[in-house]
């Protein structure tokens, strides 16, 4: 009997949630004080596609996370520190597990960091800051993130270090991958000069979505995961195998794709635990680099 070639070709690459290890909160929606030209969800002061989460929203999900055995909590936006509930949210989260907040570092206030330092010291768990800076100089960073953002973010790093935090400087690779070692070395030197004596660095691949698709280019139709590519592949490398994102519009599959219509999977963790077709261009980036969204301490 002949094999039906159409059925074979249309087999979708489905990834099922294996375990809900990381729970993300789109805590500032898509609202940001900056308008970075490479932002994969086009955040800005005027983007209200996704709204803020309240302390009550987060508290409910933290309670629900217990039976799912969530290991770590991540907070992103937009700029999370624009959300007036954020400090209380992070304080409460540290009762449940480790927390990581992704910030551009430009709006941090000493009184917030004082409270957060006390909260972390009183917790079993780490509070990590990931500060986005796209290169070790204003010349590399500012054309992407905006005028004076390098200087302002470095002030944020200095403030975090003063309060005893060890921020993870997270940069999007807006240079050629072969320059990684040189850029990382230069960045370490610059951070030392700013008083950060053991800088932690993380490089992210570019995601050709949102504003970045306009800045450079989007994904080509060839940059896709096929079902055959998942045969024998360790799917724990993919963020959607072990993460979900709480947004004000429901639970999304991963932090990268929230703008995609198919990314909102439901209102409950159960509804959001079903398989997802990893057919987006960004899925191919995740496939290539592996677990791009989590911290280096997570393996």
């Amino acid at each position, binding site marked *: 009997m002949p094999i039906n070639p159409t059925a074979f070709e249309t087999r979708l690459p489905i990834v099922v949630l294996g*375990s809900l*290890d990381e729970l993300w909160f789109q805590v500032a929606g898509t609202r940001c004080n900056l308008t970075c030209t490479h932002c994969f969800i086009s955040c800005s002061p005027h983007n209200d596609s996704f709204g803020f989460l309240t302390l009550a929203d987060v508290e409910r999900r933290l309670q629900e*996370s*217990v*039976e*799912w*055995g*969530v*290991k*770590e909590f991540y907070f992103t936006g937009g700029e999370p520190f624009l959300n007036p509930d954020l400090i209380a949210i992070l304080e409460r989260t540290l009762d*449940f*597990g*480790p927390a990581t907040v992704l910030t551009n570092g430009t709006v941090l206030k000493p009184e917030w960091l004082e409270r957060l330092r006390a909260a*972390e010291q009183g917790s*079993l*768990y*780490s*509070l*990590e800051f990931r500060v986005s800076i796209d290169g070790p100089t204003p010349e590399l960073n500012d054309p992407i993130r905006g005028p004076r953002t390098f200087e302002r973010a470095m002030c944020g790093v200095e403030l975090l270090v003063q309060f*005893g*935090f*060890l921020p993870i400087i997270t940069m999007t690779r807006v240079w050629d991958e072969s320059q*990684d*070692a040189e850029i*990382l070395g230069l960045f370490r030197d610059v951070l030392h000069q700013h008083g950060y004596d*053991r800088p*932690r*660095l*993380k490089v992210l691949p570019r995601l050709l979505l949102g504003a970045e698709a306009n800045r450079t280019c989007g994904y080509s139709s060839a940059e896709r995961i096929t079902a055959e590519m998942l045969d024998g592949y360790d799917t*724990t490398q993919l963020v959607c195998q072990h993460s979900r994102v709480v947004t004000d519009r429901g639970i999304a599959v991963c932090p990268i794709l929230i703008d995609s219509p198919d990314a909102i999977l439901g209102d409950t963790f159960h509804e959001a635990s079903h398989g997802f077709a990893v057919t987006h261009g960004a899925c191919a980036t995740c496939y290539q680099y592996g677990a791009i969204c989590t*911290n*280096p*301490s*997570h*393996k």
Partner: protein
Amino acid sequence: MICLGDLGAFGPHPDRTCELIRENGILVVQGNYDHSIGHELNDCHCGYTDPRDNHFAQLSYDYTLANTSDDHRAWMRTLPSQQRLEMDGVQLLLCHGSPRRTNEFLWESTTSAQFLAKLCADLECDLILGTHTGLHWQRTCLNSQGFINVGVLGRPENDGTTNVWYTILRSAGAGRSSLLWEVEFVPLAYDHERLAREMRNERLPEEFIETILTGWWTTCLEVLPSKERRRGRW
């Protein structure tokens, strides 16, 4: 006596460790190093992400692979990735990193109690024993299930002391305690200066020798969460 894996790495003469372990019939769980060495893979699969960390990890791995005999490598391939034991009714699950993955990092400050409780429930055990990160710790969950990282004997714990650590686990005995086990983390002093000399003779990196002599980690630091990183010097 039980060994939770990674027989070589960092230090000199990995074959001597294998000989001692095998001669004494000690139960061993396979670590990521043992899996990689056993199968002659390209690297240790420790899970580092930083280029400098990977550079030093590779020096350690290449030395260990070159100094592990074919016979020991064949034996490493036969080691189980996990082992279940019962201790006076307590169901123990022994692994290297986590029961889910040999090289999973379970750090004290980034592993929630609810995660450990679910792991124990899903795997139908009371207590999980692991190592891998190189730092001992323990946590007991609300339902009296728990996790113990038993520490490591091959490298000091980034606390400025030169001793290494092992763990004694005892049954608490029925009715004596709400917990069914007792844990003692034991610091072990040894002739670390002799070890440093042997490492120099084997041309292992000075950065590793500094760790043996000072008790502070100098490499493979970028995977540490912030709480653990702050406790160290570098």
